[in-house]
């Protein structure tokens, strides 16, 4: 391949050759011939030496799974395993467009001696969750004069799984520490009367109560037999149903309904695990992409992160399939958090909710309202503004209807925007804990 510099030489060659022919001048003709011969004379030699099988590229990264917003060091080693000198090589290690090159350069240009190696590294800030690939590495070899080059891709891609951002959790921890209230704004224990150790109160004796529970002092005072009651701490079981249908992908990049839904699911899982609650996550659209059963295992969070990282907005929301999948695998009473924009037909949704309730579960629908996630109305022109308002009204009306319908099953629908998405899920979780919904 001829470089830009090569084309300049060829252009000059044509200029001098044609001038030489036109003015019958051998000097100009000779100069033109020199330029053309000079352009191509070492080309076969270069083609022979530019055998890239002698170049090995190895890319290493510190970890293959990172959180969005974290930093990643990429080390690239180029080895010349042949016995040839490579006069000039440029190595470009490609990284995803959405990521930011924080320190160093993903590019290196040098000469490489036989048997030697060159190592260069750079630091990237990983952005936006999902499955990404580092690479491939492009090696461009130029001849000494920079007239020709060969370009080859010599290193396969390195897969990196980017987890959703951990910043919400970090912020929550920071605020929790600042307030000195222990975990999660102060824990809300779920207390039920039972076999715990903390005293709860008295009640009258009923046949069958163990004699050891009778409080003889109080019985003597009151004249009736009274037994002591104790509180027992229980954990709740939560299932976070994350809708990943195409419409959930609407909104500004990194601020789509789905991204907020994923952040909410992550926060909920973290909070649940911190308080020994069982939290499961289901990722669904027209089929169930992943279901992580409720658990408190040590690596449970990573399983959830894996599932959330891979979520992509596509297809449509098939609530029935998702609910039937989850209820088949989870028999215990659970609290379902549906994170969905409710932009599908109502009948399957209602049918799915019916199935949830019929199986003895509770549910809460936290629904991001589309227009609140999209461009502010102020940025539109007059026509777009009217249309957007009309669409918003239509959607709002639908929501009203579906809320009324779901209220009959005792399922609240909470409309949320970007600002109140995460606070809402924290509030709902705490309320559920306080009420003792879906005890494990």
């Amino acid at each position, binding site marked *: 391949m001829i470089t830009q510099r090569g084309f300049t030489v060829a252009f000059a060659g044509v200029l001098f050759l044609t001038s030489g022919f036109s003015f019958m001048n051998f000097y100009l003709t000779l100069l033109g011939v020199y330029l053309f011969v*000079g352009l191509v004379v070492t080309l076969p030699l270069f083609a022979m030496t530019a055998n890239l099988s002698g170049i090995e590229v190895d890319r290493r990264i510190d970890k293959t799974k990172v959180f969005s917003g974290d930093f990643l060091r990429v080390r690239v080693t180029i080895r010349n395993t042949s016995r040839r000198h490579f006069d000039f090589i440029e190595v470009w290690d490609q990284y995803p467009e959405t990521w930011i090159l924080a320190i160093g350069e993903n590019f290196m240009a040098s000469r490489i001696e036989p048997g030697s190696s060159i190592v260069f590294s750079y630091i990237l800030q990983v952005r936006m969750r999902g499955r990404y690939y580092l690479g491939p590495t492009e090696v461009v070899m130029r001849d000494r004069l920079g007239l020709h080059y060969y370009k080859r891709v010599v290193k396969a891609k390195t897969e990196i799984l980017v987890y959703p951002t951990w910043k919400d959790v970090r912020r929550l921890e920071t605020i929790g520490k600042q307030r000195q209230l222990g975990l999660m704004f102060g824990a809300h224990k779920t207390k039920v009367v039972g076999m715990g150790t903390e005293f709860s109160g008295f009640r009258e004796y009923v046949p069958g109560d163990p004699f050891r529970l009778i409080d003889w002092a109080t019985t003597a005072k009151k004249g009736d037999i009274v037994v002591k009651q104790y509180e027992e701490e229980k954990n709740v079981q939560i299932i976070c149903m994350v809708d990943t249908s195409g419409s959930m992908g609407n909104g500004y990049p990194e601020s789509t309904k789905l991204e907020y839904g994923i952040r909410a699911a992550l926060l909920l899982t973290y909070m649940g695990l911190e308080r020994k609650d069982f939290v499961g996550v289901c990722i669904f659209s027209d089929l169930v992409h992943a279901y992580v059963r409720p658990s408190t295992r040590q690596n449970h969070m990573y399983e959830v992160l894996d599932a959330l990282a891979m979520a992509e907005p596509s297809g449509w929301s098939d609530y029935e399939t998702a609910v039937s999948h989850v209820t088949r695998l989870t028999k215990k009473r659970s609290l379902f958090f549906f994170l969905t924009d409710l932009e599908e037909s109502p009948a399957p949704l209602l049918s799915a909710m019916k199935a949830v309730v019929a199986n003895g579960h509770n549910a809460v629908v936290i629904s991001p309202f589309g227009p609140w996630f999209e461009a502010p109305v102020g940025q539109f022109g007059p026509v777009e503004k009217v249309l957007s308002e009309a669409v918003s009204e239509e959607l709002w009306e639908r929501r009203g209807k579906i809320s009324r319908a779901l209220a009959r099953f005792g399922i609240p629908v909470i409309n949320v925007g970007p600002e109140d998405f995460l606070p809402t899920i924290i509030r709902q979780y705490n309320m559920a804990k306080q009420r003792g919904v879906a005890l494990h």
Partner: protein
Amino acid sequence: MAAFVAMAYIVYRIMSGRWDWGIPYLFITTVFRLLSLLVFFLAVMMVNSLASPMIGGQTLNTLLAGLYNTLILHSWVMEPYGLTSPLANIEEVFASFRGSLLMILNTLWQQTFTFLYFLFAAVGVALFLQSLVRMDHKFVGGAFISIQLILVVAAFREVSSVPNFVQFPSDFFYFLGSNVQLLALISFAYLEISYQMIYSYSVGKPVEEREETLKKQLLALRMATRKQDAIERGETVSSTAMSRSSGATVFSFVREAIERRVVGTSEALENLDAVADVRRLQNFVDEILRNDPAARDELTARAAAPSQGYVVRSTVLGSVFRLGCVVAISFLLMNPSVFVALLSLPPGISDSVELLQPEFILLFLVPMILLFPFVAMLIGSLVAREGEIKPDKEEKEKLRKEKKELKAKKRAAEKARKERSRIRKEVRGEAEEKDEWDRAIEQVKQ
């Protein structure tokens, strides 16, 4: 540098006697004379054209035209250059225009070529000086072409001192010592050596630049973090020239944070994410540099710096080899006798006068020049593919499995959906003309 000076000096000597130093000034004044003449003529024509309909389709009378020329054009220095007295009527204007135009154009033609020699020489020297500082092939190429264009123009003007052969020599050694060959070789050597120098420079430079960039990046990062700490402590922060040059301009990551107005302002604390990003990056870099002694060298790619000795040695050897090849092959291409002897052409062709024309070399030049890329392509096709990547068997298998699983999932979901839909239809009976949302609510009520 020596090659350029030699090339420029030889061209200067060839053109000796033609470097009239007054020509550039004269050329410019002649151009202005021409412009002045055209503007004056147009002005007179326009005034007369506008005035004639008002005075019955006649030209302006002498008095009017004289007044106009004296008061308006003369006072605004619009008369043709060289005229002292005003032209009193339109006929005089026409006569003057006819005489002056041809004379000025002829002068201009004579001066243009000398002016071009000066122009090309000035551009060539300017580009050469630029190339010394910026080491870019565009400046080198530009300087080379500019100097050679002097000879191209001179050849067009049939200047006898421009090197030329009456007949291309068949003796290689005579050819080697000829003026034509010497100038062509020096000119080509300038281009060759300059490109080799650019190569030497470009091999070492990225490493230096990389190190410099890294230093600036780390400094900018450190300063951004310190500034933020100071703000958090409630201290006032001043922006120094150092922080501006090393921080805001070279380091995109910090720059982005600055653009988002989160670093270096009191509002910074409100945007915890961006501030935290800069601080976390600082911690990350500190940790890497602390734990890995080779980290700094890897970030700067210090190991990539090639040995200077080898670069110089190989540059000289490479240039000599290339120059030798170029001269030898060019001689063969330009001197048809070798090929004529090889091809055993009939006397009618081998003695033909056409063989002595410069254009004849095209017959050999084109196939010979194309032969090199062809051979390179053949070699390339044999060796280059070794580096390409193909997905391995395991990877293919994994992809196939993933696809298969997804397909099965979709099939199962579709089947379940159809079943549910059938049951729903049976329960609902005939479809009603009702909003689907209302219908759903109705169903819930039931």
